[in-house]
């Protein structure tokens, strides 16, 4: 594929950013969740 570095790079940036955002969000949720009662987790 011509210009593969640019093309694959754009997919890598896109998927990488989404995965990092998801990972950081879930980690923060886990940290904050420990001190919160289950009854306050209204989505459960």
């Amino acid at each position, binding site marked *: *594929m*011509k*210009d*593969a570095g*640019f*093309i*694959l*790079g*754009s*997919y890598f*940036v*896109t*998927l990488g*950013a*989404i*995965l990092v*955002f*998801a*990972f950081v*969000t*879930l980690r*923060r*949720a*886990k940290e*904050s*969740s420990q*001190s*919160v009662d289950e009854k*306050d*987790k*209204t*989505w*459960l």
Partner: protein
Amino acid sequence: MSQVLQRTSATGTRATKVIGALAILVMVWVVVSGLILTPQDVVQGESVRIMYVHVPSAWIAYLAFIFTAVASASWLISKKHSMGFDRFAGASAEVGVMFMAITLITGSLWGRLTWGEFWQWDPRLTTTAFLFVTYVGYLAVRRLEGSAEQRARRSAVVAMLAVLEIPLVHFSVVLWRSLHQGATVLNPNGDVKMDDLMLFTLFSGVVAFTLVFVWLVLHRQRTMLLVDIANRQGLDAAIAARKTEGSVR
């Protein structure tokens, strides 16, 4: 990946699991179709493949900022001033900023291949950069000192002003002379000049990114609620401890 993350998640539900699984499925299709199945463009050649991630990320960033404005308006208008609106606005803006950053980076890579430049200060790129900077500012406003209510009020006003930039960004290629090509799908004539599989893959990208957006916003706003509760509990505990100390003396 999603399931591994979900197992340890404090903010996951059956709905987010379904959305996450669907997002992965559609995203895999977009990657396979975008990189392998779709044809080269007659003029741009292989570089057209960047379109399948660049355009959906721009659209979802717009969508995220519009949701932020609607949630902010709902917070301002509602009598109860439910903090749920504020958290949704904040979560949506964070995800929107991420998608806008993706748009700028992938657009820059695409620009290098087609225009021959990573960046030019043409109307579309300049207004998009300004939109991005504005929403980074919005996120900074959310982190200024003050009560939750102050945070919500300040950021709601910023969000409702910032959203007015979106039509300016979208129509910049029509209003002014731009190096950036005009809209293909959302063009004023409604005549879409794109081959079928290319168009289908582009729309698949929009679906995949929408699912990702919903998944991220649901988790992020629940995380914000957890942080707010944890902070409040910490404050209550500190006050109780000080009261106890005071009564002992």
